[in-house]
Structure formats: C-alpha cells, structure tokens
C-alpha cells in the first residue's frame, strides 16, 4: 500500500545545535507573550530561540515579542502570512538554525507539541514533519474539517501531492530542507505551496497528529470565509499559470 503520510530517508540524525521557532504575527499583542512563554528553552538537546515576524502590526506585537526574548523581524507593511513565513525561514537560516519550526502566533498550536514533532524529525531522519489536525480530528469543527478536505483536493489539483492537512502551519524542517524550498506565496496559499515543494524537491516527510487549541480568540483570528475564498482564488490562479 502506498503510504500518503510519509516517505523515508536514511541520514544521520540531528543531535545538537539550534532550533528556531518561526511565528508570523499580525496584531497578536493579546496572546503573543503567552505563546512565547510556553516555548521550551531546550528541545532534543537543541537550544531554542523564537523569531517573530511582525507583519505590519498596528499594535504592540513586536514590542511584546521582543520583551519575551524573541528575535523580531518587522515588515513595514502587511504582506500576508505567506510572506511573513518566508521572511522568518530566511531569518532562521541567517541565524544558523539547524532545525526550523513554523507555528501560528494566535495560540492555535500548542508549543508543548513542538518536542514530539522534532523528535519525529530526528528519529525518522525526515526533511519535514507536518503537524496534522486531520489525523486525529476529535474536537475540530466539522466546517473546518470539510474546508480542509476541499483545500487538500485543490492542493492535489494544483501541485499533484496529497497530504492529510495541507493547510497546517505547524511544521518542522531541517535547515537544508528550507534551503531547497523555492517559495513565493504572500498569502495563506503558502501552506499548499510548501506541500508542492516537498513533492517537487522529493523531500522526505511525515505527518504527525497534533491537537489544535480552539479558543474564542484563535477561532476569531483563524481563517475567515473571505480568506478561504482568496486562498482558493490564489490556488486557481496558480493552476491557470501552470496550464
């Protein structure tokens, strides 16, 4: 049977070094401090530091992040979650991180789950580990499950690769995998583009279940209907450009 959730590779595991947690953030002053405070200082023998990409926030997101010890990179205008993620990945590489984690800054991703994802990357010798909300969807609203499945199908149509949660922003990469990614999406379609790049660059990956934290705040800050429409339009435009 073909395993859609992982591919394999035999390489040496990463046993020490630096781990960067990249968080794109726009107007997250209310929660960014709490999220940063929960990120462990040490994971799998690696020292952890956070990079917050302040994507043109109008509030004190950057300032609060800096106070909590994060390296803050600020976009002077709002570009979108995709552009902020790309900036964060570039910063992490410039700061010589060995392993790079991307996660949302609105508290939807539990920082305690970084460790199992990184362990999976190390032990399985993968290039990328994707935190999947769909593998154990208990507690996830049905509308979100349906929307995710639709976007999985669209991602497959555009990039020819299917994974269980193509829209997950919770991922772990080796530094060399990030170096190989050629990303250009400014908006939420970045998640699908990363899936496409995993396929195009033949990177080894595994999807691991994660439990999203749905609070009123994260629900309100999450993807809205109009964002979803923009995402679908963005993916369709890419499909048109490819044909």
């Amino acid at each position, binding site marked *: 049977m073909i395993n859609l959730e992982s591919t394999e590779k035999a390489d040496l595991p990463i046993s020490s070094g630096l781990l960067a947690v990249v968080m794109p953030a726009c107007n997250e002053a209310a929660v960014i401090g709490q999220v940063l405070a929960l990120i462990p200082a040490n994971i799998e023998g690696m020292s952890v530091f956070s990079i917050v990409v302040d994507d043109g926030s109008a509030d004190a997101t950057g300032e609060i992040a800096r106070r909590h010890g994060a*390296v803050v990179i*600020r976009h002077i*205008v709002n*570009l979108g979650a995709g*552009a902020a993620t*790309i*900036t964060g990945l570039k910063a992490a590489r410039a*700061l010589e991180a060995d392993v790079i984690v991307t996660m949302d800054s609105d508290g939807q991703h539990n920082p305690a789950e970084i460790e199992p994802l990184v362990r999976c990357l190390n032990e399985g010798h993968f290039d990328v580990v994707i935190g999947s909300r769909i593998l154990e969807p208990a507690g996830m609203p049905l509308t979100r499950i349906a929307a995710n499945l639709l976007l999985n199908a669209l991602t497959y149509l555009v990039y020819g690769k299917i994974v269980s949660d193509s829209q997950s922003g919770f991922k772990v990469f080796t530094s060399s995998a990030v170096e190989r990614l050629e990303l250009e999406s400014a908006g939420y379609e970045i998640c699908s583009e990363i899936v496409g790049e995993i396929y195009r660059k033949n990177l080894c990956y595994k999807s691991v279940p994660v439990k999203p934290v749905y609070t009123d705040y994260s629900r309100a800050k999450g993807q809205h209907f109009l964002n979803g429409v923009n995402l679908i339009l963005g993916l369709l435009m890419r499909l048109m450009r490819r044909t």
Partner: protein
Amino acid sequence: MFVFISQIFSVLLAVIAISKSYVDFRSRLESLQMFVFWTATWIAIVVVAVFPALIDILINAFGGGRAGLGTFFGMAIVFVFFVMYRMYVKLERIEQKLMKTVQEIALREGLSHRNQAERVENIPDSIHRR
C-alpha cells in the same frame, strides 16, 4: 426605460472617473497625457451610451453590417478581458517586487549589526560557542 437608466449610469460613472482623474492630475499623481486619455475615453463612452445608433453607423462604416451588435460587443468583451489579464499580470509582478523589497528591508534591519546587541541577548548562549 432600461436604456435611459443605463445612460444615466454611464454619465454618472464618467463624471466620477473624470473628476477622480482631474484630482489626481492636480495632485501630480497623474500626467497630463493620462488625464487627457481617460477624459477622452469616458466622453466617448458617454457619447455611445447616449447615442447608441452611432454603433450601427460605425459597424456599417467598417463594412460589418451583417455582423451586427453581437460581434461588436463580443469583441469589446474580449478586449476588456485582455486588459484585465494584463492588469492581473502587472499587479502580480508589482506584488512580488513589493514583497521582496519589504522582506529585504526587514531582514537587513532585523539582523543588522545595529541590532546585534539585542540579537545576542535574545539568542541562547549555545550560538556563541559555534
């Protein structure tokens, strides 16, 4: 009645477009050539909307009597779609350039030597041992 409403609508849109173009020209956001071009274009649209018979005369003058209004509007729609496509491509290019510029500035400032002290403070000790 429908023709009258569409005529009023066209005149209204033309007045808005021309006044916006004039304000931009006065504020030096638009060149004289662009202002003249858009004014002439909108006047032509209003003339055609108010005197639709002009289209028949135009079609006959170009020897397309049998083709009729359908062909004329078909061509107009194709032209409008072509303009939309060109605008989409240009917009995408500008968006990509803007993105790259903002990212470069952000990375340069965020990782510059000016912020080196702060960076050293924020990154764990292990980086200094490397």
